[in-house]
């Protein structure tokens, strides 16, 4: 029986099915992460690279402290500020995406089922265009004398250039645009499951539209909203291309900072340590999500 080995046991079969994924993750995820973790505990090489035999925690110390001439450690919040700036920018991006994404998802969930798949397809259209092209498109839209600036001036709504490009706001717009599907789709998934008779019940008991939304619809869509926020927040935190192009490189973000360490600064251990600090923040966000929504009330019905 040629397929005999395949049927030998349940365990074998499961291993055969999961094997490619495990191999993929091990080679392309686990080994690089371990390597990176190891690098973050090494001495930097004089001209880039690392000294493989010298171990130190200097890279992590350097994240918060600066070594004075006399060797004593002084608190240095420069890098922490870059992290905080990226953090606030990601929060801003997430809020902006949520403000646009929730109504979109809600609208989609209210459409007749036969239109919904078309709408899902339309929402994923940003994914069809190259990331760089999308960002350059936003430069054309946002720059002074660009499409939006000209239109506002022509309508007489502004009498000076809008000067939005190369600000954190421009970065937030660009990131929101890129990550909007990540917000819309999970929220849509939870709203689509929502039993609209519950909304009728809320109306029946005297809730107007606003309170039905706040007390019934949003709580029941909370797992989707949280998933969407995490899916937008995490890639925003480490984003590199959009902050470089739309932020104009004026205010450094985590992604650019890490790239700098492996490039111009030739400080691989520090770059690796920064990447690990970022990973830590991301894991913390996921743990919070899991603790809060692992057993969501909406799923118990």
């Amino acid at each position, binding site marked *: 029986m040629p397929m005999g080995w395949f049927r030998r046991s349940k365990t074998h079969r499961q291993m055969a099915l999961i094997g490619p994924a495990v191999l993929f993750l091990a080679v392309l995820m686990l080994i690089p992460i371990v390597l990176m973790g190891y690098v973050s505990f090494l001495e930097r090489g004089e001209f880039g690279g690392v000294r493989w035999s010298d171990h130190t925690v200097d890279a992590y110390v350097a994240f918060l402290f600066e070594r004075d001439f006399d060797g004593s450690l002084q608190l240095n919040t420069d890098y922490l500020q870059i992290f905080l700036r990226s953090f606030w920018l990601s929060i801003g991006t997430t809020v902006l995406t949520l403000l646009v994404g929730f109504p979109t998802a809600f609208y989609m969930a209210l459409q007749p089922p036969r239109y919904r798949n078309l709408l899902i397809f339309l929402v994923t259209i940003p994914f069809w265009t190259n990331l760089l092209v999308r960002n350059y498109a936003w430069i054309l839209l946002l720059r002074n004398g660009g499409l939006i600036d000209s239109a506002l001036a022509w309508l007489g709504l502004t009498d000076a250039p809008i000067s939005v490009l190369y600000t954190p706001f421009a970065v937030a717009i660009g990131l929101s645009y890129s990550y909007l599907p990540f917000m819309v789709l999970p929220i849509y998934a939870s709203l689509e499951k929502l*039993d609209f008779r519950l909304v*009728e*019940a*809320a109306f*029946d*008991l005297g*809730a107007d539209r606003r309170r039905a939304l706040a007390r019934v619809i949003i709580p029941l869509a909370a797992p989707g909203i949280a998933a969407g926020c995490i899916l937008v927040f995490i890639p925003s935190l480490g984003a590199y291309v959009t902050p470089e192009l739309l932020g104009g490189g004026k205010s450094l973000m985590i992604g650019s900072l890490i790239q700098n360490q492996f490039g111009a600064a030739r400080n691989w251990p520090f770059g690796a340590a920064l990447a690990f600090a970022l990973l830590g923040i991301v894991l913390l966000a996921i743990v919070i999500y899991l603790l809060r929504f692992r057993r969501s009330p909406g799923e*118990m*019905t």
Partner: protein
Amino acid sequence: MSESSGIAVRGISKTFGSGADRVQALDNVSLDIRENEFFTLLGPSGCGKTTLLRLIAGFEQPSAGDILLDGVSIAHLPPFQRPVNTVFQSYALFPHMTVAQNIAFGLEMQGMARRQVDERVAEMMTLVQLGGLEARRPAQLSGGQQQRVALARALANHPKVLLLDEPLSALDLKLRKEMQIELKRLQLESGITFVFVTHDQEEALTMSDRLAVMSDGHILQIGAPAEIYEHPRHRFVADFIGEINLLDATAAEPNGNRVRYRLGGSQTLLAEAADAPPAGRVSLAIRPERASLEPAGEEGLAGAVESIVYIGADTVYRVALADGAGNFIVRVQNRAGARGAFAIGDAVAVVVPPEAIQVLSD
């Protein structure tokens, strides 16, 4: 009772969709529901009874007509501005809230103070006999308990009218019987007008003060259960409520205040004449328990026993009438010391008292 209290439905029509998909759910329906009444809308699925309930609740807007509550039009108020609450068929309990939070929801929407809300919730928990389950979530309750929470939640606001959309259909038979009694008790204690939707004619007869029988977007007859059962005015009503014999007949000759009807061949039946006895082709509707079986030769419809079904309290005889006049079901109570029963094939006479015959125009 003043004329304007209760619900008045005036010429309500409701259509869904347009073009070829157009469905006329209600067609020029008018109806008066009195204050403190247990009123039932009865009919098969698709007859428009749930649509009528949803129009009263405010989930649908009428295509034409008006709905008045205590003399004031409510047809175009949103549901949250109507002093009307609903018990949904699916219960529609909020899954993310506890039992107590579910019941408190409507009270909080009214802006009631926290302490009063807590008091009212406790009062409701006692009323529906759910004490101790305040902190449970709906998913942790049995179907019967969920039903009670749905009732408590809808009654907590002290609505003028409580609408119930087939609330018992998901329960098993025993629980359904219990809840029927429970609902009747709650209605009497609260003094609230109940509008109850069901397709179960037995449920409708046992619970209602009055009921409306609906079919195909129309109300066919409104009356007390006994009136609907004893004096159906439509073939559909007669057929839908309980078991009934429907015989095709033509009016023969008036006979004093009675009319003789010819069934086919030499078979005739004498019926009480209404104010305006229908002429021409009619249907004679006779309840199986109102006829009796006598040995052949007695004054009645001649026939032969075709089948006999013993069902405990009663025995049901199916009689094939002579001259092709159709079949006739007779339901005989099994009494102690009753005369010897009939056997299959026996020639019999079906005796029908004139007042037991309901003459329906076709």
